[in-house]
């Protein structure tokens, strides 16, 4: 359960103040697949940083799993990211010259999961993300773009997070591969009941989600949440 209440974010550069978010409120229930859509400069990246506990709001509250994240220290935010958030980036951000398994196991290193358990969990996540077993021991730079992004999705999944945040996950992929990756998100949402927030500027991509929150100039201009395409009664179980 995610609750965002009247969140504002102001950046100050010298004497110039810029308000990136100007009072944003919404809530996302567990198991929802939400797209946050807006053009560049709309504040969607700022919103993603706050949702991902990478940044805190200047004003307002962000409550994740009943815990107020908006006032936490850097180290406490790191714990939230480690336990509750899984990131998928546009630029993939895999460790270069490193095996697929090792990449996926990386979050478990910080979660101090035991060695054997790491491998089991990483393999599970990779299967859930739809990567063929033969690629598990390949180096990250030996894979195609679509495969890389699936490794990144597996890495986001491996810690069993409350929320998966995908920031323009198809931005570096061609349309066909992008479709496959989006399909993966849909499957994770439907089959495994994962809560997914997709940040994008393209409506084509956003429409894969069940609910679209449109944002412009730091404010929500439209939220399709009330008339969801599908009712959100997903099975909630770990993959």
């Amino acid at each position, binding site marked *: 359960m995610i609750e965002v209440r009247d969140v504002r974010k102001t950046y100050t550069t010298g004497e110039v103040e810029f308000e990136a978010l100007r009072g944003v409120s919404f809530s996302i229930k567990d198991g929802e697949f939400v797209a946050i859509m807006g053009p560049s400069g709309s504040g969607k990246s700022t919103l993603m940083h706050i949702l991902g506990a990478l940044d805190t709001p200047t004003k307002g509250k962000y409550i994740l799993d009943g815990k107020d994240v908006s006032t936490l220290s850097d180290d406490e935010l*790191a714990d939230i990211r*480690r336990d509750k958030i899984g*990131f998928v*980036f546009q630029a993939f*951000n895999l460790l270069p*010259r490193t095996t697929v398994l090792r990449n996926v196991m990386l*979050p478990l290193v910080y979660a101090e999961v035991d060695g054997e358990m790491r491998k089991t969990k990483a393999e599970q996540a990779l299967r859930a993300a739809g990567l063929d077993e033969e690629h598990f021991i390949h180096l990250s730079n030996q894979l195609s773009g679509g495969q890389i992004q699936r490794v990144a999705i597996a*890495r986001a999944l491996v*810690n069993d997070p409350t929320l998966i945040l995908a920031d323009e996950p198809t931005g570096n992929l061609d349309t066909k591969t992008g479709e496959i990756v989006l399909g993966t998100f849909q499957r994770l949402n439907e089959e495994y009941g994962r809560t997914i927030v997709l940040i994008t500027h393209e409506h084509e991509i956003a429409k894969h989600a069940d609910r679209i929150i449109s944002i412009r100039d730091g404010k929500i201009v439209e939220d399709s949440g009330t008339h969801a395409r599908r009712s959100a009664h997903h099975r909630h179980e770990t993959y």
Partner: protein
Amino acid sequence: MKLTDIFEETYFALSSNKVRSGLTMLGIVIGIGSVIAMVAIGQGAQGTIQSNIEAIGSNLLIVRPGAQRGVGTQVSSGRGSAQTLTVEDAEAIAKNVPEANAVAPEVSGRYQIVGKGTNTNVSVTGTTPDYLAVRNLQIAEGSFVTDQNIRSLSKVVVLGPTVRDDLFGENAENVVGQAVRIRGMEFRIIGITAAKGGGGFGSQDEMAFVPVSSAQKFLTGSDSVSTINVQATDASVMTQAEENITALLLERHRISDPQLADFSIMNQSDIIATASSITETLTMLLAAIAGISLLVGGIGIMNMMLTTVTERTREIGLRKAIGAKKKDINLQFLSEAIMLTFGGGALGIVLGWLISFAFAYFNVLETEISGASVFLAFGVSAFIGIVFGYYPARRAANLNPIEALRYE
């Protein structure tokens, strides 16, 4: 983050860029290696010099005559020129100074020794049997000068091995019993001393020894002696012995003011102390120069770590996004720096050992590697890792994850 994970990450990061890690390590290898080698060479030199000094005898006090000064004149003929010391002085020292273990007076001069168709100019020393003990000398063949020889003014001579070689040919045998001529007089060879190698104060291998009485009568024609060698019973009583000898000789020479003493005493432990302080300074100088290369190596580490942090900005951002704390990033990069210096330190110790081994192997110098210098080298290399790794690691830890992820 577990400790084993930090080690694994560190190993992984360093081994994924082997050439660069290796080159960076090389700076530390050379630094630590040269410190160890220089200290080993310095200590080896100290040991060699010390053993050279000790080879001339142990616990030795050397009494030499002072300057002779004519009555009513200020002209001095220089130290050692006075003819104030006598065999009786030596006997008095042996009798009255309890710390004196052995006393050997010495009369020396350079003379031409003539053999069969050959001749050589050597230092001929007139002395007593105690000379062997006092100057650590051994007899290889025959015997040394005896008290009987001294009493009977025997014209006998003991040759150093080099003198024997010069007169009779290399390692000539059956030399004992043959005769040589010194100042036109025939001396019978009664012994050959054992080869001792070069000493700090002229080699005894190149000397010839005759009874002190014979030297005074036939060679110098004077009753004085040029040196009195005194061996103290123990290193700890050398100062005491020196004071007693001074008092005794002042009294015998009827001098009331010690400032006007007509003799001087050289203490062997003083010579060793002086030589040691010289070599210690030398060792420190060498180590300091080597230390500079260690410093340069450390700066190399810092340089590489800063480059690495910049290159891996996105990786740092990602690690932070998936839950790494500042502390984790800090430790990871610090341990990379320490691993580099530690690895470099270990290789440097091997290199230093090889260099000093080579010095010893090719007989340049006896070297000795002290455990302390190895221990110190390890400590220093770890310390350098921490010092030069701290700043880059802190820079990495303080990166903002959002900006780090965006870094191109």
